């Protein structure tokens, strides 16, 4: 079960990595070698995270994105023996580069809901404004109280 999932994700990650490597080279002027190494490492971390998550889902159900991000964090953290290698080789991969392909896939997937999005248009703008404003004010309030209590201001 876990093995089949591993092979399946390996195949999908492989074809997706090719797009990401291409966009890295074209859009962000990376060298071919750096791009392949950087994206390759990120994909290995991703594949390991996905597989661990699949295995762990027998015991506890947690989002696989959490395993992936945690694995990346551990490998790059000060306690990791290979942190320099991981950080240097992936720092070349532009932070936003993987996301253009992601946007294209997401767009294709959302294509079947364009009508319902268009209908909600202005409502979404209002809602987004409230969400940003709420996050900002909430943080400002907590920060104000904590800074005052700790005597920083």
């Amino acid at each position: 079960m876990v093995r089949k999932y591993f092979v399946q994700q390996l195949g999908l990650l492989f074809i997706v990595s090719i797009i990401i490597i291409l966009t890295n080279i074209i859009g962000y002027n990376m060298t071919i070698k750096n791009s392949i190494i950087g994206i390759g490492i990120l994909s290995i971390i991703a594949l390991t995270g996905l597989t661990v998550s699949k295995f762990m889902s027998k015991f506890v159900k947690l989002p696989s994105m959490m395993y992936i991000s945690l694995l990346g964090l551990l490998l790059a953290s000060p306690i990791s023996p290979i942190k320099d290698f991981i950080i240097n080789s992936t720092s070349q991969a532009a932070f936003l580069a993987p996301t253009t392909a992601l946007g294209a896939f997401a767009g294709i997937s959302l294509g079947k809901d364009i009508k319902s999005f268009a209908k909600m248009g202005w409502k979404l703008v209002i809602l987004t404004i409230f969400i940003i404003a709420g996050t900002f004010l909430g943080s400002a309030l907590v920060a104000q109280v904590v800074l005052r209590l700790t005597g920083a201001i």
Partner: protein
Amino acid sequence: MTFIKSVVRKYWKVYVVAVVISIILDSIGTLSFNIGLGTLTILPMVFATIVGGLLGPDTLKLFDLKESKLGGSLVLVALAPFMAKMGVSAGANLSKLVEVGPALILQEFGNLATIVISLPLALLLGLKRESIGACYSINRDSNLGLTTDIYGPDAPETKGTFAVYIVGSVIGTIFMSLFVNIVASWGIFHPLALGMASGIGSGSMMSAGAGTLGTIYPEFSDQILVLGGASDMLTGITGIYIGTFIALPITTKLYKILEPKLEHFRKKKGVA
């Protein structure tokens, strides 16, 4: 190898179009328009989402419903290396995290306030389960990953996150610089508290907010930028955990309580 062949056969059309879209838009790069009030920014990713969407069954009909769904299953795969990259950046900055101290960490919980404000609004505007995905967070990249992962690419919750993600990417920086001006003029918050608050989990919105604050309070401008940046980074690191364990459960619970009541209210008022 045979497996890869079958994957290619199934996904080739979606894949080729995505490659073409990505290559074209990445070579164009980020677009920015000055509209007087501030700058509207359109990242290649947002542009790609819009173009991809227009090719779908609702508009230009290049893809049918089935292919459109295949796009969804690739979203999750494309997100995985990106989340790895976010994790690595977080790990590389871990020591900075210890430096910035408890005030910043506590302040992260202030981000949860948006749920109580925006969820009722979303329900009044007529959103259903979309509101859960839309209102549990600021809807930046890591949240997008999280919602897609938990609910699946076709779930209403994921659509909610996506909608706010896209709108936020386009108008977020303008709105932040305007709103920060307004809040600063109230005079109730200390400039440093505002600086911390501007780190809401989006680099561009943070820069817009902290940059504007810096011009309002020049004597604090350096500290504001440092605190804003640290808080932003922290939101990037903690966002996925706060989202999984605190924000999403709270939002779902609140939704279950509020939805029936507001539905009743909306029917009575005759709002569409």
